[in-house]
């Protein structure tokens, strides 16, 4: 039997995330440049595949058929794959899953995976209004459900009611993520830290969330290179970081189909992680560093539970205990996560992947000692689906 090909992540980079004076195609170029800064010698001609993950490209940049636009601006000439895909907040992680399959099958050798969003418009109302399109338009959106805070606020209420989670425990998530995100040069809210007091006294967004419980809407772009082992060795001397296993699980879109007993239970994440761990031949105990989707502080708490890093219902106490810090049981979001780095939907997955790549190669700013296995996770929109990717210093045998 032929040796199965392995897919690796070589490196990557992001544009500055934030409220940007830039077009989506400008930021795509910035991300590509940042990627090349991370992989010296990388040339457009090295790349045979392009996947660009973007949700807002069509509405806010009138760039529906985005992939060829990116090809033109980056001087690419892909021959194996050239597509835009959209899974909202999981965009570039979905693209990484696709790239992994294409590389392992031999269809592609070197894939440029990108994510990009242009969210800010000349008038604020349009940004909020467009968010109606990320939910089930004729049903939940018509109830006024647009930007996610009200939905996740109800999730927080349920978790507080069922498991006794407190606002102070939730604040530990943002305080910890700010500790690390302050040093990410491209982070939306980089360059500052946060105290529990500041978090608890911040202005209310949607009860029980204050300002720092919520990730911002951000413009931005990110880029990573997913390649075959052979091509990766030719491109970089760094230790190889393998894509070991992935899982992506969806159960519904509209609220009537919510799969959990209540909003506080996310069985669809549990299932996605089971699939990813099985494919990676690992368990949560093996993971040394994680990037979980901290769109809101409560999200990180629930994700740590459903991913198996702590017991169901104990997420609040877990994060408050310091378990998510660099020296804790499961260092999480060591570059600031969505809360601090920002969240241009399609770009976040690749941004997470870059940090895991650096952690496993021993070159992260906030380095976890001896990190061998890492994990990235995104939910999509109002928690409609979950995407999990597991990385390791060794391939699956």
């Amino acid at each position, binding site marked *: 039997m032929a040796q199965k090909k392995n897919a690796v992540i070589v490196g990557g980079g992001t544009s500055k995330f934030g409220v940007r004076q830039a077009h989506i195609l400008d930021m795509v170029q910035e991300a590509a440049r940042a990627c090349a800064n991370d992989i010296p010698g990388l040339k457009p001609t090295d790349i045979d595949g392009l996947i660009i993950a973007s949700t807002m490209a069509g509405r806010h940049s009138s760039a529906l058929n985005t992939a060829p636009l990116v090809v033109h601006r980056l001087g690419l000439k892909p021959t194996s794959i050239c597509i835009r895909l959209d899974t909202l907040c999981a965009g570039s992680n979905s693209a990484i899953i696709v790239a992994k399959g294409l590389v392992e099958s031999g269809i592609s050798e070197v894939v440029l995976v990108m994510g990009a969003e242009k969210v800010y418009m000349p008038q604020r109302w349009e940004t909020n209004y467009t968010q109606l399109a990320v939910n089930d338009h*004729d049903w939940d959106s018509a*109830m*006024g459900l647009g930007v996610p805070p009200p939905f996740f606020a109800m999730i927080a*209420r349920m978790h507080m009611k069922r498991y006794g989670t407190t606002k102070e425990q939730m604040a530990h998530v943002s305080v910890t993520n700010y500790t690390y995100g302050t040093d990410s040069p491209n982070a939306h809210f980089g360059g500052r830290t946060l105290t529990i007091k500041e978090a608890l006294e911040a202005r209310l967004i949607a009860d029980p969330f204050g300002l720092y419980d919520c990730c911002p809407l951000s413009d931005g772009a990110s880029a990573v290179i997913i390649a075959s082992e052979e091509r990766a060795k030719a491109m970089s001397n760094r230790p190889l970081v393998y894509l070991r296993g992935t899982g992506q699980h969806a159960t519904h879109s509209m609220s009537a189909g919510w799969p959990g007993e209540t909003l506080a239970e996310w069985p669809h994440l549990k299932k996605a992680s089971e699939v990813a761990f099985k494919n990676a031949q690992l368990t949560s105990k093996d993971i040394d560093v994680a990037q979980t989707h901290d769109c809101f502080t409560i999200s990180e708490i629930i994700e740590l539970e459903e991913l198996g890093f702590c017991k169901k219902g104990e997420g609040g106490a877990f994060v408050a205990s310091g378990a998510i810090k660099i020296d804790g049981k499961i260092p999480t979001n060591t570059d600031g996560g969505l809360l601090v780095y920002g969240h241009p939907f399609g770009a976040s997955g690749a941004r997470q992947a870059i940090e895991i790549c650096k952690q496993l190669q021993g070159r992260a700013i906030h380095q976890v000692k001896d990190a061998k296995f890492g994990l990235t996770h995104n939910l999509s929109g109002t928690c409609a689906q979950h995407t999990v990717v597991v990385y390791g210093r060794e391939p699956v045998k």
Partner: protein
Amino acid sequence: MTELQKSEIVGTPALNNVYIGEMDMWPLESPEFNRIYPFYDNLRAGKFTTTKCKKCGHITFPPQVICPKCWAEELEWVELPQKAKVVAITETQAGAPLGFESPLIIAWLTFDHPALKHLIGRIIHAKEGEVKEGDEVKFVTFSVPANPVEVKKDTKICDRVFYAFEPVKK
């Protein structure tokens, strides 16, 4: 070189009094655009309905064209309960989408029905802070802006309706 004249028009001229489908926040309810239009006809008659599979008995919400359980096409319309209980509630002050007034009150509801164990519902006809977890709410319908539809050389106007929930007076 001619000096550039400052334009007096702000915005997009084509949008004056023009219906833009892409910006429409309400569903296209007429039979020209969907096969579940009886749902909206039933709303107009004050009824909250959905489809039930005649083959396997599964009831699903929203109404569909094939059964999501067994993919059968033989579906029938059935009524849903019009009262629900508030499980969680949230009031948004800032960032309510255009067309929705602040505070926008959204609740996670549960009905005494297998197809509606969970449902997001907007709460209207209620003051800020009035509705609490555990309260009962009831289904209510209202008119929303009509949309035009070109039919051959003519344009017909489709009146539209939608639904939300209001507190049941204690």
